[in-house]
């Protein structure tokens, strides 16, 4: 037996290290397999979008055939773009999403400032009403809002898609919670210097709230870009369709053109993907914020 105690320690450390390495390899393998499962449908989507229409069906072909674009038919993208007015859908989506997001962030920030910092009669009651509506399913308000828009003659217009999407209690609630976490001293000092309420809001509160505003912007943008049901309900004419409705319409017309369908779907996902990759941190923060409120 070794009399030198350091030998024991060394062996222990080595064993520990080996155990750790083993554990790490296992975890990596697990994470890697999981990631592969997540990615597989996307890989298949890309591969399919680049095939010749006749090449898609692959019973007699090797197993990897489905996953690798063997031919690069970029023409599919051009074709999908031509068959339905994809450019038009894109433009419609951009108009709707930008205006919805702008409206949502602006009005929510205003209201959140009022709720978080200003005292006025009825404030807490109104805020409670906002909170209470947050759990009402969209299906409840959908029908009366539709009837209202019809009475106004706004069905089949951008307004009908944009306006109801702007006013969510969630945006106001989230920004209010964030404003409450900011220190008040700066605002008090500004008030003493004679700064107006709008000045305080614009020059002090907003610059401090950039992360929260970015989070709300990202979430609203994404939700609005993907929103399918409401535009489907209020839009009738093809040239006003947003991308999701346009893609559904495209599918109903070209049910069997897989290559084109995949090309079209990829084009719809792409902007969201870019937004996510560049704004990832705001996603993560926003999710954590929404988790705290429970």
């Amino acid at each position, binding site marked *: 037996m070794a009399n030198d105690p350091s030998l024991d320690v060394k062996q222990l450390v080595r064993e520990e290290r080996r155990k750790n390495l083993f554990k*790490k390899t296992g*975890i990596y393998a697990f*994470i*890697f397999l*999981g*990631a592969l*499962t*997540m*990615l597989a*449908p996307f890989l*298949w*989507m890309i591969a399919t979008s680049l095939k010749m229409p006749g090449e*898609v*069906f*692959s*019973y007699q072909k090797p197993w990897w055939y489905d996953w690798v674009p063997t031919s690069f038919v970029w023409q599919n993208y051009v074709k999908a773009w031509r068959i339905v007015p994809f450019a038009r859908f894109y433009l419609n989506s951009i108009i709707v999403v930008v205006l919805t997001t702008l409206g949502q962030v*602006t*009005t*929510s920030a*205003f209201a959140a400032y*009022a*709720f978080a910092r200003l005292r006025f*009669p009825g404030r807490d009651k*109104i805020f409670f*009403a*906002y909170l209470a*509506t947050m*759990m*009402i*399913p969209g*299906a*409840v*308000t959908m*029908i*009366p*809002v*539709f009837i*209202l828009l019809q009475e106004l003659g706004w069905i089949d217009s951008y307004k009908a898609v944009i*306006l109801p999407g*702007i*006013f969510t*209690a969630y945006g*106001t609630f989230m920004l209010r919670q964030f404003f409450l976490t900011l220190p008040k001293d700066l605002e008090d000092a500004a008030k003493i210097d004679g700064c107006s*309420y709008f000045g305080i809001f614009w020059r002090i509160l907003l610059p401090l709230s950039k992360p929260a505003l970015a989070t709300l912007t990202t979430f609203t943008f994404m939700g609005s870009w*993907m929103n*399918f*049901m409401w535009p*489907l309900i209020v839009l009738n004419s093809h040239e006003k369709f947003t991308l*999701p409705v346009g893609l*559904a319409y495209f*599918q109903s017309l070209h049910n069997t053109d*897989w290559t084109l369908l995949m090309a079209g*779907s990829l084009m*719809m*996902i792409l902007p*969201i*993907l870019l937004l996510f990759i560049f704004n990832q941190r705001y*996603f993560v923060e926003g999710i954590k914020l*929404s988790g705290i409120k*429970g």
Partner: protein
Amino acid sequence: MGQGFQLKDSTKEALAGYGFLLPNFIGFLVFTSIPVLASLALSFMKVDLISSPKIFKLVWFENFRQLFRDPYFWKYCWNTVVLMMAIPFSLAGSLILALALNQKLKGIVIFRTIYFLPTICSGVAIYVLWRLIYNSDFGVLNTLIAKFGALLHLPLKGPNWLTDEAWAKPALIIMGIWQSVGGYNMILYLAALQGVPRDLYEAAEIDGANSWQKFWAVTWPQISPTTFFIATMSIIGGFQAGFDPAYIMTGGGPNGATTTIIYYIYNNAFEWQQMGYAAAISWVLFLVILAITIVKWKMFGKLVHY
């Protein structure tokens, strides 16, 4: 100065408050709070928007009476609940992924991004994609199953995923798990895991606990508020879910197997012009969600460990 008339500071503040609130508040009234009341009123009416003049006829509880006798309503309620089978799997998967990603390993951020992709992209495009994946003759899933069978010299053949009444719901559930497992819930779990105090693990180690015991004695109770939050939010979401994927992938079929409550509301209101009936269903849905929310509030303090 010296105008003789000055507003009190508190009045000024109140005016400013109303001013800032106003734009949002008008929208809130027009698109949320008044419609909620209007919807309640509609649920007691027969509505016909096509005839001219439009008809709004008060029928009191007729819609609700019809609803409780409507076998389709109950069938679609059942569908909605069955589709929520995805929730426990997705929740467990999210936790396992979060546990794996919580290790201090290189390249974790890349994996987190990859796991998030299905959630980020969820929407019509993904449903179009999965409709093709599930295609019974040429979809990649059944191709894989057949090739796997060939490997084992078995004549394996995948089911008609979206056109077989027995398989349509499992198909949507599998897709739902794929879509949600690495998304919001995993991020919430990651945040929760990072919030578990280290000294609790150290204490458990001193007591000689292995990883499995540490998980059940420390991690699981510590993250129980998150689990509870995710579970209730998923159930509330689950009751309102199912329109987009079913509309794109199955049209609510086969034989109504994938029609959910929200889809039935849509059909009644916007396909069949039964707006009063649709409003009544939406209120039943609302009451169910309200009940769950109340249970959530009541239970939150009792069930979970802080």
